[in-house]
């Protein structure tokens, strides 16, 4: 059992009571909601004649269904309009803060909350979305919940949950040039497998993690769930505090020092124990690309797609399905795979630093002919800051479309979709069958820098050959 880790401390602090049957009742410090998983929860409250217990602890935005080309209301898609409308009404009725389109603070919920200073160390954060793990980058315990639990949080500000085990993932050394947080996390998931994290919280630590910026740390924690872990976190440090300072909802004035002092005390102790520890050498990670239909099926850019023999017996069935669906042969290289669509965005890699890196590669370059490339900033704030730096112009000049913020083709609930069996190079987090809107569409996950390189070359390429010296 783990002891004195940040996870243990935060869990104990938020534990209301042990419930009969073995789970704990956990207080949720910050509840984030969006249009897809909340309407049925509000409906259930109505059925049970319940109120939102602490409306001041819930914050809403809209992201999954928003169109990224024309956001004028009513939306062209009636169902999308109905969903945003329902959220608007629910927020007004229950007095919940809603950052709507045009507020300057709308965007993907996991991009928005940190930007606003809502996400802070030591909190428990829940949202009806599995990538809530993102917020763990700040040393909060953050996890996705289903709609019934959204209802529970609205009604009681608590949920029933079994305590997780804690696995430390220690990353030695540093990432080499042209290798990013996305590559590291894809590599970790590949090595451990997509179900290794079930029942665990992942603590990411070590020199390679300390060195990452807050945005990169969010990329790592974001994908904890792809490794099966419901939450992932990183102990807060000076970088964390600098990021949070002076944001809209961060502690102000005299409260700031009190907050920092408390945050410092939350870190996993020197003598903390973990359920297990796994070590990685970050310096050995290459730019990494998925070739299959789970985020665990990835290889380094210069490696070959593994044959069944090279794959663990437990993973052979899904590997067989992946070859067939993706149209790849074992032993084939991933490099030079022709690409039809390039997508830069999502809660994994749709932040300012992601757009900066991609733009630095695209500067004075052109997207390959017949390739569709588009960039969807993670939030209105990201879009504004990127424009302030002129990044939009670099993208547009290179041949990318510059879109309005939202989830977009990460899950294709709006009109941004793959067609037929198109292949996308995508900075998002899931390459599941059909994920990007076409039942036979194929997704290759990679870092935003690698997507930019693929856009220029029209095929999967090693971004290190594109980095300007």
């Amino acid at each position, binding site marked *: 059992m783990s002891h004195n880790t940040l996870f243990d401390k935060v869990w104990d602090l938020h534990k209301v009571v042990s419930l*009969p049957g073995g789970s704990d009742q956990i*207080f949720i*410090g910050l509840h984030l909601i969006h249009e897809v998983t909340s309407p049925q929860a509000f409906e259930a409250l109505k059925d049970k004649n319940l109120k939102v217990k602490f409306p001041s602890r819930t914050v809403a935005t809209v992201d999954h269904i928003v169109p990224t080309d024309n956001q004028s209301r009513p939306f062209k898609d009636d169902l999308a309009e109905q*969903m945003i409308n329902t959220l608007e009404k629910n927020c007004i009725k229950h007095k919940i803060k809603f950052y709507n389109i045009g507020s300057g603070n709308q965007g993907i919920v996991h991009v928005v909350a940190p930007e606003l200073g809502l996400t802070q160390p030591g909190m428990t954060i829940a949202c009806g979305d599995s990538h809530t793990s993102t917020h763990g980058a700040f040393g909060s315990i953050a996890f*996705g919940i289903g709609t019934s639990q959204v209802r529970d949080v609205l009604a009681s500000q608590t949920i029933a949950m079994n305590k997780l085990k804690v696995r430390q993932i220690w990353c030695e050394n540093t990432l080499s040039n042209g290798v990013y947080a996305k590559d590291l996390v894809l590599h970790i998931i590949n090595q451990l497998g997509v179900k290794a994290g*079930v029942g665990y919280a992942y603590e990411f630590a070590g020199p390679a993690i300390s060195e990452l910026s807050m945005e990169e740390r969010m990329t790592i924690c974001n994908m904890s769930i792809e490794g099966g872990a419901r939450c992932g976190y990183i102990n807060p440090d000076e970088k964390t505090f600098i990021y949070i300072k002076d944001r809209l909802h961060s502690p102000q004035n005299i409260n700031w020092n009190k907050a920092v002092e408390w945050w410092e005390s939350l870190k996993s102790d020197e003598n903390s124990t973990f359920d297990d520890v796994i070590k990685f050498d970050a310096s050995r990670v290459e730019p990494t690309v998925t070739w299959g239909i789970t985020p665990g099926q990835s290889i380094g850019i210069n490696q070959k797609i593994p044959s069944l023999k090279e794959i663990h017996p437990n993973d052979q069935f899904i590997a067989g399905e992946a070859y067939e669906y993706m149209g790849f042969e074992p032993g084939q290289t991933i490099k030079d795979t022709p690409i039809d669509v390039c997508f830069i965005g999502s809660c994994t890699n749709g932040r300012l630093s992601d757009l900066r890196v991609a733009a630095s590669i695209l500067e004075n370059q052109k997207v390959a002919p017949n390739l569709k490339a588009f960039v969807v900033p993670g939030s209105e704030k990201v879009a504004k800051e990127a424009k302030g730096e002129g990044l939009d112009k670099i993208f547009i000049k290179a041949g990318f479309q510059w879109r309005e913020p939202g989830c977009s083709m990460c899950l*294709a609930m709006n009109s941004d979709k793959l067609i037929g069996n198109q292949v996308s190079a995508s900075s998002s987090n899931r390459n599941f069958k059909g994920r990007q809107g076409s039942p036979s569409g194929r997704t290759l996950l990679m870092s935003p820098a690698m997507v930019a390189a693929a856009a220029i070359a029209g095929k999967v390429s090693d971004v290190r050959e594109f980095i300007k010296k």
Partner: protein
Amino acid sequence: MKDNFQPPLGKISKIAGKSISLIGDDIDTDRIIPARFLKCVNFDYLAKSVFADDRKNLKGMHPFDLKSNEESSILIVNSNFGCGSSREHAPQALMRWGIKAIIGESFAEIFYSNCIAIGIPCYTLSKELIKKIQHHKSEHNLFLEIDIAKSEVKSDLLTVNLGIKESAKNMFLSGKWDATSTLLENTNLIDKKMNDLPYLKFNNKYF
């Protein structure tokens, strides 16, 4: 949707029904219910869209389209079933199609708790025994009877113990698997937490 759909209510001590096998590891929530069907403000019409893309690709040969599986209610799956998103639409779609319990090698965590929250017990069983059930050949689908208190499944083929979280089992037996009321019993303690948590003191209200 089955016209007579009724969500489960109250104590559940036994679930009996025909099995339906779905073979494959890591079957994710995007496959169970593709994202385009999430555009809804209630769960009522999800049944017909369950596995929509897989079913389309298999042109009538998907287990959820086979005539022999029409009345089945106990789903037999392999490992890491339900990985991916937190969308409760996935278990809701299965439930509305007619699934009352799931037996599998392993489940993704959020999917598992979503199932429990809406009244679908999920049981674990070894790879070998799952295989035995999935590859059982006979004229009729295997009829299974699950005894919740004993965590046991009975059938002509085999009678074995199943794995389930103690907390989940107790919820079904006591009828308290609707968590909201249980949680609200501790209102005083919740209020106390709200007053005590350090960060709620040094943060301003959001609204």
